């Protein structure tokens, strides 16, 4: 960015030398009042955004206060969620949120890297824009559509073909077998992670492409000049140069995956238990809020527990997103 040029009404000439300037720009005298009003409005809008975030945090915290007071620290650690006995613990849903998001990244990051590599180094110039836009369109599809598509297409596919095959082969092995055991419902942690991976893929790919493009051409040309292959250039020049921003882009994807609601609600199976098998059902903070909200009456302890869950989700996403922004700051400025 160029340096800020101090331009304000104070050092602008008050006296117009002639009648040559467009009348509309001068009408209304010096404009000091108009300036004060407009600058004030802009600043007020900015402060409104700050207050908005503050209000969101405070409202979620106040809403969850009842649950925090009743259960104390065990609200975060307890794995029991029993609306009948009015015992609420967030342990399972926090686990589900984290495990699905991390698995999603595990699937999405290599593919996103491949797409970014293709778009910056391999693709012919005329293909870069259309392919890039197609990948970005994947990010524009609403999450409810992913949920529906996952529920009607991926879930039957998993339960009929993929899960039985995996259970019969890998599921029989010692150690890793436990990860792929159980009945092939089609829904579950793994299916949710796959849908999440598809959803965060375009975000990570687009960020990686943008940061790869910040690498000065001279660096890459020097490496090519030494006889390096495209892969060697990316591994030894592009990745070391953009390492921090790449991690920032992955964190951005993680932030998205943590708070995703509709898609996960459709396919995760919605059961409050931690199963060793990735085929087992589970839940996430967002899916619990979405599903159980309808049964929570105003002012009930359950509603407070759901708002408390919201507060926990907010804290987790805030930390991840803030870290992502901090890591991406160098390429954001470019």
């Amino acid at each position, binding site marked *: 960015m160029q340096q800020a040029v101090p331009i304000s009404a104070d050092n602008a000439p008050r006296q117009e030398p002639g009648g040559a300037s467009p009348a509309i720009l001068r009408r209304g005298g010096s404009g000091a009042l108009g300036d004060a009003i407009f600058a004030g409005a802009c*600043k007020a809008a900015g402060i409104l955004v700050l207050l908005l*975030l503050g209000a969101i945090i405070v409202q979620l915290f106040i809403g969850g206060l009842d649950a925090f007071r009743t259960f104390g620290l065990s609200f975060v650690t307890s794995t029991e969620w029993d609306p009948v006995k009015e015992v609420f613990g967030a342990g399972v849903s926090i686990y589900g949120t984290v495990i699905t998001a991390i698995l999603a990244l595990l699937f999405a990051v290599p593919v996103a890297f491949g797409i970014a590599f293709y778009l910056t180094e391999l693709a012919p110039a005329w293909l870069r824009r259309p392919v890039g836009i197609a990948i970005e369109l994947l990010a524009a599809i*609403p999450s409810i559509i992913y949920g529906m598509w996952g529920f009607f297409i991926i879930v039957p596919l998993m339960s009929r073909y993929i899960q039985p095959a995996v259970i019969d082969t890998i599921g029989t092995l010692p150690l890793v077998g436990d990860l792929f055991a159980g009945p092939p419902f089609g829904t579950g942690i793994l299916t949710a992670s796959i849908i999440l991976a598809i959803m965060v893929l375009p975000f990570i790919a687009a960020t990686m492409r943008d940061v790869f493009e910040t690498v000065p051409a001279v660096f890459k040309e020097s490496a090519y000049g030494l006889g390096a*292959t495209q892969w060697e250039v990316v591994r030894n020049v592009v990745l070391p140069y953009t390492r921090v921003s790449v991690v920032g882009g992955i964190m951005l994807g993680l932030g998205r995956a943590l708070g995703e609601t509709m898609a996960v609600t459709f396919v995760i199976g919605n059961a409050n238990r931690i199963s060793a098998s990735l085929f087992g059902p589970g839940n996430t903070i967002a899916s619990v809020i979405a599903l159980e909200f309808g049964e929570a009456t105003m002012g009930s302890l359950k509603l407070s527990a759901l708002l408390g869950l919201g507060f926990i989700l907010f804290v987790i996403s805030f930390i991840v997103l803030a870290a992502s922004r901090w890591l991406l700051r160098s390429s954001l400025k470019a």
Partner: protein
Amino acid sequence: MSATIASPSSGPARDPRVSAALGARRRRAALIVKVACYAATALGLLLLLLILGTLFWNGASAISINVFTDVTRPPGSGGGLLNPIVGSLIQTFIATLVGTPIGLLVGTYLAEYAKNSALGHAVRFVSDILLSAPSILIGLFVYQSMVVPMGGFSGWAGSAALAIIVIPVVVRTTEDMLRLLPDTLREAVIGLGAPKWKMVTLVCWRAAASGILTGVLLAIARVAGETAPLLFTSLGNLNWSLSLSAPMSSLPITIYSYAGSPYPDWIGLAWAGALIITLGVLMLNIVARSLLRGRK
């Protein structure tokens, strides 16, 4: 790469057989990675085609004129999606109407007034957090601060939740687009004797108009498909209602409840709704991007 820059006095490069083998290995590694990257890109494109294909396959057969002219009815008695479509249009419209001016002012503040001030950095940071924050939490927030005090779910609350999502999208594009303008433009306007507010509104906003419009279109596309924040605010309404003080129907919520139902005709309508919403959102995205063509 260490092999390629080994000094000539030592290392394998002196032996032609070793260097040929090394070269072959390096080329093989490059080829494997290259093929994997082609495959990754093909997978991404395939997923897009697969999703669109499924929507067309299931949605096209369910779509008829009734979908647009008839209201939602109990399962087995036909019906359409008129009230969800109208409800979505109303709430998206109000959200855009409220969110755009605020986002525009904040973006202007960041680009023209507070480029490097501490408050500016804070606002930029918070706006970016809001941009990626889970939308379900915005719904909970509006539930706590509007639905509970007002005593019930309403179209107003739904519009408010969507407006909060519009703001950061507009802020991001407005700031980016204003920053692309050359400072000489600003100096020229000030040099003509115009006050700064006229410089911003009459020159900068106009010069960045297509970019700002892109942001607004992307924001509309974003909120049109939002489901989670509406669950706790406008709730959904299976009856025909245009009152903003009552629960209001919306396309995403209707898709959500219909897709999870056991009735084939409702599931068909859910596919029709999914097709309508996806085509609308993708169209808005493509129009928005074509507006930006040649600017970046």
